[in-house]
């Protein structure tokens, strides 16, 4: 793959939420939702981000789009640092980076018709001709597998899968380059999930889209991603090519995660790695490697030093002391 073709580059991104308390409401501590995350997404690829709930994957996605203000770090989108843009310039850049939301029931304004929902981004970004807007809405409805008669209806008249198609259409209206898909199928029925995933893949081909695909479902991520990043407690602990990651997981957490994926074979006897304990609180993450409290291969150094995020060959990045020799 060509290194120069990076559309999005995230460097040392951090998002800390202050925890206020005490009599005069001073900042007592920080919840480190995203703690020093770096990765890049190449043009036209799908980067999957997986991790259990609360590991900071959604916050990462939202920080990249500056829907939540990042605390530190830079986000280079096509060479432009998004975190330093003025409000107005950011607003203009938003046409190139869009988002698909998890909950199709909450992400569409219940008071607007589908036509209004889809034409609003065009209006905001200066498509003033009403006729042109209407044509593009109708075209986009057909692209996502709905039809033009749906334009006059309200969101509550649609099923979850149809609503998610509307959400996808809305994200596509402005011909964006990057789409951050925040668990776009996890609120849907399994039977609908595959339809929407296939739609996303078709659209990627048709419009040369780049996806940052956030999910907690490993099989979904495996299906759609080119490369996969695994997050744990606000950090990316492993990042590799999809097949490489599934065939040769290096980080003990990834190994445990993959061993939990169900296999469609009743006779298959697997060795499941059961992790001890719960995920520590991101308000008070363990020092050193954040995973050391639950790691089956824990060493002394893991409790003291945070491991570097290093390339172990073949662009397989991992952050673990086991490989720091």
């Amino acid at each position: 793959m060509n290194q120069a073709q990076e559309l999005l580059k995230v460097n040392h991104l951090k998002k800390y939420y202050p925890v206020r308390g005490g009599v005069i409401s001073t900042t007592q501590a920080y919840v480190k939702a995203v703690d020093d995350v770096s990765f890049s997404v190449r043009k036209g690829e799908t980067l999957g981000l997986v991790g259990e709930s609360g590991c900071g994957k959604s916050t990462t996605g939202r920080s990249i789009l500056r829907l939540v203000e990042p605390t530190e770090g830079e986000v280079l989108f096509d060479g432009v640092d998004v975190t330093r843009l003025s409000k107005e310039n950011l607003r203009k850049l938003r046409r190139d980076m869009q988002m698909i939301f998890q909950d199709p029931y909450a992400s569409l304004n219940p008071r607007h018709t589908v036509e209004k929902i889809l034409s609003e981004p065009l209006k905001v970004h200066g498509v003033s001709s009403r006729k042109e807007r209407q044509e593009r809405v109708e075209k986009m409805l057909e692209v996502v597998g709905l039809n033009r008669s749906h334009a006059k209806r309200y969101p509550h008249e649609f099923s979850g899968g149809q609503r998610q198609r509307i959400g996808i259409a809305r994200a596509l209206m402005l011909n964006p380059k990057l789409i951050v898909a925040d668990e776009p199928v996890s609120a849907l029925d399994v039977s609908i999930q595959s339809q929407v995933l296939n739609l996303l893949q078709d659209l990627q081909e048709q419009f040369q889209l780049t996806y940052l695909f956030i999910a907690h479902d490993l099989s979904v991520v495996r299906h759609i991603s080119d490369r996969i990043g695994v997050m744990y407690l606000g950090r990316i602990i492993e990042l590799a090519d999809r097949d490489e990651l599934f065939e040769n997981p290096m980080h003990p957490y990834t190994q445990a995660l993959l061993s939990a994926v169900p296999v469609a074979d009743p006779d298959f006897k697997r060795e499941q790695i059961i992790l001890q304990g719960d995920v520590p609180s991101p308000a008070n993450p363990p020092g050193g490697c954040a995973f050391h409290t639950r790691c089956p291969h824990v060493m002394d150094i893991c409790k003291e030093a945070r491991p570097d995020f290093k390339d172990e060959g073949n662009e397989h990045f991992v952050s673990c002391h086991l490989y720091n020799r």
Partner: protein
Amino acid sequence: MSQVMLEETQKTAVDPSAASGPWRDAWRRLWRHKSAIAGALIILLFILLAVLAPVITSHPWDGKDLYNRLKPPSSENWLGTDGLGRDLFTRLIYGARISLFVGFFAVMGSMVVGSLMGILAGYYGRWVDMLISRIFDIMLAFPSILLAIAIVAILGPSLENAILAIAIVNIPTFGRLVRSTVLSIKEEDYIMAARAQGMKDARIIFHHILPNSTAPIIVQASLGIATAILEAAALGFLGLGAQPPQPEWGTMLAESKDYIQKAPWTVVFPGLCIMLTVLGFNLMGDGLRDALDPKMKQ
């Protein structure tokens, strides 16, 4: 067989005549709400009386006739006459004009100002919220009628100043309501989606947040009109609102209170009018609340 049924359901699903917006559903529920209909009928009756007053009665509203003082209800004077021999029915229906006018404009004023302040506080938060909310707290620390009396005392007693005073007094009610509604709506995903699409704050507020917070505002407005009418009558009774000879209900009560033994109709009927309009707006407001409350939706 199942193929046929599938086609059947698809047909109904695409039928455009079955269109239903959130407002249409609310209408349907409102129509089924008996006490809301009763309230609406009372309000409609008073509106009709007020608008058609010159047609309904031939008496002028300030036509004094000292030979016919304190006459009981008769075919000539349907509800009797007051201490200056004026026809009570005539004065009451002209009084409906004043009360409805007061109720409507006082509420309009407090609704517009209160909603704007509430939106600013709720949407921008931080020090804006701090400032506006503290102003509301201070205003709510006074009993509302006391505050209204103070404002009228400063501005001078008149109907216009009474409207202004009532409008000011009711600002925090709307402000707090709208602030809390905005606080919950701005966390919705579709607001984040609007921001992600690059909309400006003004557009998000007026196209996304406001349309979704109209339901509680409408309910509060309806209930607020009742309060405003009551407060206007109280100010009038205290001599701080409409001035005689204006046929304002509260003022009429004050003028007639000495005759309560001799000619009770001069007090009973203005009192009844106040009660009925207030009841009408309250019933209507409760009905609207039931019809618009999203929790009732399936």
